[in-house]
């Protein structure tokens, strides 16, 4: 043989072995090597190497390349399949525990899905708007005299045009002036009132990425006396005919339709049915449009792509000082990203946006997490408790040569199997509950969202993740058992990780307690606000808005002329409705301005609304001068004037800038003080209120009616309305409707919370039940022996149950302070809040103890009742 063997290119051969089917690799490599040596001998090593490279390249073809899945792992797939099969058999073998595990997980996953759908729906708001990341709403931070701040959703008309002039980064702006009241539409012979409209600038189409059915977004709403309506209104008035160029008469003026737009999508914070061109209004009220104090405009700006937003925010402070503060309006104009308006603007006053609440979202997400954690802990608990029963299986498997990693895989796949079954059931449950959820959240969420392939993948991954989270600890715990120990000893009891199990039970109870307290507090706060004394009697009051050519006093007398009408009062400003917020001057203190809520009323107002006069007197027709110079204050307003004792406020001189003539003052004295009135919801702090008579502003009629025969009363009102006023359709509402609306968000949160809390407690109890069933079955013999030796059934129940009572006590120790702080933090934002009484915590504790005792008690009782013979005869 030659001194040196030619060496084939090893790297190439390695590559070959990598891609080649393992079955063929050896024989082909042998052939390759053989040919290589022959070639090397005949033509030299270089040539042989080159040819080998070529051969290896040409061998890279189907039939020779190894299968994609890998031939080796094929066996493992079968193994995993077997895990699932055995897992399934195990589920069937222990139907009770499987049912507990699966139903607990299914409920928690179903709740999680529901909450997820709700949150997803909330987060979808305004995502359809193009360039939303550089669109902002300008809102107003108002500094009151006492230094407190209020946030308003609207700013004066001068703000955004001036911003565009002064800041080059502003690309376009939009002002919208909302109509607070419905407007009468006349098209041909049709007369109907339409709500939800306002004056808008042309930029509205671009700002909200609106789709036009008819009309040109570039020119629409640029001319005075033009209007754009949404597709629903168009259909209502014009059917399927095109509406462009038709006219609608408003305020006896024809408005030309210049655009028909698609209805705003459900997920838009800005929802208006019709918009009239703002330029017409600007032309008529040119002077008023120069105002820096008239905060009545919903204003939006769009910035240029490279704008520096934080810098602009900072510059706006200076801007506000320069324009508003110099004119004595203590406003800071600020920017809020358009997409945030839905969730983050709920603290802004007078907003027309569709509001959600980010806090609700966080609370719900936390609840979802709680429920999941409880279900996972259940699983961990039950599986570790039952590890003993699986001990034999583990022992045999280990003896037969299973690696620990394989056992871990096996137990985790069982957990994943359970999670997958639970997910399926959870989706079914979510599908059944969704209509109910939709009904009281007033959403139209469809389960179809879940059919998105991405969501399906995410859900499967989620189930797998839950399975892994729940299965990991038990898997390691069970697989750690020593086969020799398990298989040799006769006893099947493995001294437990009892501490861990107990710890988990304690943790579950803490979560349950927390949720119970939370839902009780939310519900109590809601009930408190609903039933709080607001200083007036809001029941049985019908409100009519006087429109068209009616003489208010004559109308009042006509309506009041019926036995069911107790009182009738004219005015401008009712609790829960629009009221003026200008204020009075303190004439005894240099005419200092006092910001107050002004109610413009008549002589019967206090009686009709049931206000309580605590000092001085009501307005009276016996004092003809009341109309000219009498004011009645609320306690809060009296305090503002420096009178903590209402009696000293009487005779205090005040004045009020007249609306009909801003340069002249209505001068007068305080003749009475009423108990404080809450004009808004109880979520707001009390505002000072001033009542006075000013017939010029009357636009509303409030009627206190007898609670019986409401239909008859309404019939009378309608008849009277028709006789007075042929032009406007008859519309009325009850005053308490306003308040029902105000507390809707708390009501929703309370009921959502209550249902999810029930779910959580149920899941936690399932787990507890499983544990008790298990531990009593382990102590079956002990119970039998105790009974034989003379233990009473009651004593046995106590014996079995007392351990759980201790766990409950420990969990209360931790849960009470934690939930107390959380609840106080939530209540913080309400100026009027319920007390966190000890009773509340006692209630929650009793509830939990009760449920836990029933769960533990029933099972222990069954065990204690059983005939000892059944337990003992085997040995």
């Amino acid at each position, binding site marked *: 043989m030659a001194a040196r063997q030619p060496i084939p290119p090893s790297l190439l051969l390695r590559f070959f072995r990598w891609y080649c089917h393992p079955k*063929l690799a*050896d*024989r*082909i*490599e*042998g*052939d*390759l*090597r*053989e*040919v*290589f*040596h*022959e070639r090397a001998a005949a033509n030299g090593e270089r040539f042989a190497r080159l040819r080998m490279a*070529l*051969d290896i*390249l*040409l*061998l*890279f*073809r*189907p*039939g*020779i390349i190894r299968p994609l899945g890998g031939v080796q792992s094929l066996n493992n797939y079968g193994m995993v399949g077997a895990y699932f099969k055995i897992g399934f058999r195990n589920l069937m073998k222990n139907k009770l525990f499987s049912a507990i595990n699966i139903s607990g997980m299914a409920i928690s996953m179903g709740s999680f899905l529901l909450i997820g759908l709700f949150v997803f729906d909330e987060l979808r708001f305004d995502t359809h708007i193009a360039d939303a990341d550089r669109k902002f709403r300008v809102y107003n931070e108002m500094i009151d005299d006492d230094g407190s701040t209020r946030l308003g959703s609207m700013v004066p008309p001068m703000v955004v045009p001036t911003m565009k002039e002064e800041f080059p980064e502003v690309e376009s702006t939009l002002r919208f002036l909302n109509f607070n009241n419905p407007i009468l539409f006349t098209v041909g012979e049709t007369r109907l009132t339409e709500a939800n409209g306002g004056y808008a600038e042309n930029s509205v189409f671009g700002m909200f990425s609106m789709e036009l059915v008819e009309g040109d977004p570039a020119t629409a709403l640029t001319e005075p006396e033009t209007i754009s309506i949404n597709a629903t209104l168009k259909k209502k008035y014009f059917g399927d005919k095109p509406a462009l160029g038709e006219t609608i008469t408003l305020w006896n003026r024809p408005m030309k339709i210049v655009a028909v737009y698609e209805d705003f999508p459900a997920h838009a914070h800005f929802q208006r049915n019709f918009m009239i061109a703002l330029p017409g209004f600007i032309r008529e009220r040119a002077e008023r449009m120069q105002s820096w104090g008239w905060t009545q405009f919903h204003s939006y700006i769009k910035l240029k792509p490279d704008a520096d937003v934080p810098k602009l925010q900072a510059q706006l402070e200076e801007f506000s000082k320069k324009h508003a503060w110099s004119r004595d309006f203590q406003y800071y104009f600020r920017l809020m990203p358009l997409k945030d308006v839905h969730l983050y603007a709920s603290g802004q006053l007078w907003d027309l946006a569709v509001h959600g609440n980010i806090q609700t979202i966080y609370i719900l997400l936390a609840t979802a997490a709680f429920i999941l954690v409880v279900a996972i802990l259940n699983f961990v608990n039950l599986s570790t408790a039952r590890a003993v029963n699986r001990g034999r299986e583990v022992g045999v498997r280990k003896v037969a040569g299973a690696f620990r990693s394989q056992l871990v895989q096996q137990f985790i796949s069982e957990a994943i199997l359970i999670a997958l079954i639970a997910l399926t059931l959870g989706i079914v449950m979510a599908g059944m509950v969704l209509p109910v959820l939709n009904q009281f959240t007033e959403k139209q969420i469809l389960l179809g969202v879940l059919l998105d392939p991405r969501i399906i993948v995410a859900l499967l991954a989620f189930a797998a993740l839950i399975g892994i989270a729940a299965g990991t600890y038990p898997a390691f715990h069970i697989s750690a058992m020593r086969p020799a120990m398990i298989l040799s000893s006769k006893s099947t009891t493995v001294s437990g990780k009892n501490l861990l199990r107990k710890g988990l039970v304690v943790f579950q109870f803490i979560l349950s307690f927390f949720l119970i307290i939370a839902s009780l507090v939310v519900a109590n706060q809601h009930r408190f606000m609903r039933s709080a004394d607001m200083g007036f009697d809001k029941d049985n009051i019908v409100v009519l808005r006087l429109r068209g050519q009616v003489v208010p006093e004559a109308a009042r007398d006509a309506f009041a002329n019926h036995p069911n009408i107790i009182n009738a009062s004219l005015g401008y400003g009712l609790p829960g409705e629009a009221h003026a917020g200008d204020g009075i001057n303190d004439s005894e203190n240099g005419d200092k301005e006092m910001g107050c809520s002004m109610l413009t009323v008549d002589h019967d107002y206090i009686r009709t609304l049931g206000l309580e006069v605590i000092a001085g007197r009501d307005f009276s027709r016996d004092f003809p001068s009341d109309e000219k110079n009498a004011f009645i204050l609320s306690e809060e307003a009296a305090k503002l004037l420096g009178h903590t004792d209402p009696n000293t406020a009487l005779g205090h001189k005040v004045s009020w800038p007249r609306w009909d003539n801003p340069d002249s003052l209505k001068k007068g004295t305080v003749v009475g003080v009423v108990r404080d009135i809450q004009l808004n919801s109880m979520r707001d702090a009390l505002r000072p209120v001033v009542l006075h008579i000013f017939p010029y502003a009357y636009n509303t009629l409030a009627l206190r009616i007898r609670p019986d025969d409401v239909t008859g009363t309404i019939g009378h009102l309608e008849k009277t309305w028709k006789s007075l006023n042929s032009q406007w359709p008859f519309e009325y509402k009850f005053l308490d409707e306003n308040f029902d609306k105000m507390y809707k968000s708390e009501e929703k949160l309370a009921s959502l919370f209550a249902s999810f809390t029930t779910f959580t407690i149920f899941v936690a109890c399932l787990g507890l039940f499983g544990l008790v069933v298990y531990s009593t079955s382990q102590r079956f013999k002990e119970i039998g022996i105790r009974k034989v030796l003379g233990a009473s059934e009651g004593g046995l129940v106590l014996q079995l149950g007392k351990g759980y009572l201790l766990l409950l006590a420990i969990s209360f120790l931790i849960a009470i302070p934690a939930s107390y702080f959380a609840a106080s933090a939530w209540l913080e934002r309400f100026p009027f809040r319920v007390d966190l009484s000890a009773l509340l915590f006692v209630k929650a504790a009793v509830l939990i103890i009760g449920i836990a005792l029933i769960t533990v008690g029933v099972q222990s009782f069954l065990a204690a009742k059983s005939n000892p013979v059944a337990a003992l005869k085997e040995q």
Partner: protein
Amino acid sequence: MKKYQLGEFEEVVILTIAILYKEAYGVAIKKEIESRIARNVSMGAMHTALVRLEEKGYINSVNGESTEERLGRPRRYYGVTALGKKAMQHSMETRNKLWKAIPKIVLEIKTV
């Protein structure tokens, strides 16, 4: 035809295996084809054909001895199975049938 599928190159390979009888392993088959019909055979083409033939059940194989050159990789010896023989037979017969069907004149003209 469907019954015995045999590609053109596969036929060459199986015939060569038959020729080599007990000596048919990769390199030998390659050399035999190259020497007999003066046709370059790449390792890839040949082994693919071998895999196919084996999958179809026309040939079987057994590990044989190894040499120093092969670094312990055994030679894989191939043999024709009964089914393989039938397939070869079938292939030859169909060819013959077709040959016989050719009018004599065609071949005569070709020879001119």
